[in-house]
């Protein structure tokens, strides 16, 4: 069967037409301040030289800058490093110019309801783990962020909690998910992705299978809370990174590979706090090791843009539709995702094929991995 024949099935055509209305989104990412109360293990912002830039602090300079970004064709902003909630006037200036976007925040300070962006509040573990994985800037154990986040954002429909799985915190999800669900919020998943030239104790390594099982358990137990699909779980916990599975459309990767820029590669930029950007780091997670990249924001662009790699079977196409549907629900406030088209049976069949393929493959030489450093 071909793509055209898949679309003869009403449920696939309906979902395809639903997601494709959003193909117009043109995103770029912006670090808006170098300030943050916390230092999270492996935080992408405090890697490389980004955090050494001098901050542009004048909201009017930012306002003019975002107006230029709008004129460049950007229709969706991702405001990330270091902690955007600490610069409310810059957030407002951005929202006034480009009204679609999201903010990645630790949730310790409330963002004005006048900024109508999607808010991604990061959660790193339960009350025992969260203070360990992310410390205060001075080095002492951090706060347990979740109670403050829930208090700051009670009944706030802008919010999606983003739980980052790491090597140690798989079972810590239970406490978090129960509290988020009880509060009527939504939650999606991220997977810790190691920065370049580092060896983090949070790198998942042999925990990928366990993480995938936990994701699937969560999405089945909390279908109204968890914004994730079976296919999301599959591709974000594959032994290969997203880059290895699908290639990568971000300018950083496209430039490294010498490929012809198309789509996202032509328009995406990752701006620093001084309003500069460098093509070699234009990526939603600059300084992340591409060979370990399973980051949720990277996946949203990588998997969604790899439409052509998902049409050689109906099952893959259904997986892609679910992925894009979940991605849009995670990143757009008013978007509601539909039921999974890539079912549990598809997921199990795919996992069986992956296991069989691994069994048939010639045995690789034993990996030489450094010992897991202590946290």
């Amino acid at each position, binding site marked *: 069967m*071909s*793509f*055209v*024949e898949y679309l003869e099935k009403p449920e696939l055509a309906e979902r395809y*037409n639903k997601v*494709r*209305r*959003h*193909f*117009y989104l043109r995103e770029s990412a912006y670090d808006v301040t170098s300030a943050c109360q916390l230092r999270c293990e492996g935080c992408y912002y405090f890697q490389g030289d980004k955090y050494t830039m001098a901050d542009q602090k004048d909201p009017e300079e930012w306002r003019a800058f975002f107006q230029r970004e709008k004129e460049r064709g950007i229709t969706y902003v991702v405001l990330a490093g270091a902690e955007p909630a600490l610069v409310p006037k810059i957030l407002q200036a951005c929202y006034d110019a480009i009204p679609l976007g999201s903010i990645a925040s630790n949730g310790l300070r409330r963002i004005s309801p006048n900024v109508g962006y999607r808010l991604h509040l990061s959660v790193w573990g339960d009350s025992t783990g969260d203070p360990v994985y992310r410390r205060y800037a001075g080095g002492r154990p951090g706060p347990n962020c979740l109670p403050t986040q829930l208090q700051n954002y009670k009944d706030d429909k802008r919010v999606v909690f983003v739980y980052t799985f790491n090597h140690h915190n798989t079972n810590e999800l239970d406490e978090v998910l129960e509290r988020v669900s009880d509060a009527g919020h939504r939650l999606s998943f991220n997977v810790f992705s190691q920065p370049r030239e580092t060896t983090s104790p949070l790198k998942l390594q042999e925990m990928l299978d366990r993480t995938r099982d936990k994701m699937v358990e969560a999405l089945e137990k909390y279908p109204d809370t968890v914004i994730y699909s079976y296919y999301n779980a599959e591709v974000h916990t594959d032994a290969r990174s997203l880059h290895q599975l699908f290639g990568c459309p971000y300018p950083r990767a496209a430039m490294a590979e010498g490929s*012809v820029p*198309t*789509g*996202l590669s032509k328009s995406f930029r990752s701006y620093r706090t001084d309003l500069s950007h460098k093509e070699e780091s234009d990526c939603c997670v600059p300084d992340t090791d591409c060979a370990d990249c399973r980051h949720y924001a990277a996946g949203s662009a990588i998997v*969604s*843009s790899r*439409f*052509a790699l998902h*049409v050689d079977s109906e099952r893959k196409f259904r997986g892609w539709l679910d992925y894009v549907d979940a991605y849009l629900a995670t990143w757009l406030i008013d978007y509601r995702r539909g039921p999974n088209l890539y079912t549990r049976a598809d997921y199990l069949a795919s996992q069986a094929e992956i296991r069989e393929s691994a069994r048939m493959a010639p045995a690789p030489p034993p990996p030489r991995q450094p010992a897991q450093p202590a946290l």
Partner: protein
Amino acid sequence: MSESQITDSNVFKILWSALEGGQYDLESLQRSVDRDTNLGEILDSLDMTDFVLRLEHHYKIKIAQADFPRLSSIATIEGYVRDKRPALTEA
């Protein structure tokens, strides 16, 4: 649409079917796009992929990703399909 004819009007029909239901003002595009319009300046890369998949299905050809730059306009697509399926041009 007959598979045995490669004409710009057939390629246009495939293009419009690819864009139906998407982000575009189709009526406006139908007035402004001609056979030499650079499609890369109009279509999103995902919509371009949709269009290419429909061309593959209709003309029963395989279009490699590396060939996408050759598919810049209706005119060049017509030429590309003719190269791939020369027998069809005789119909």
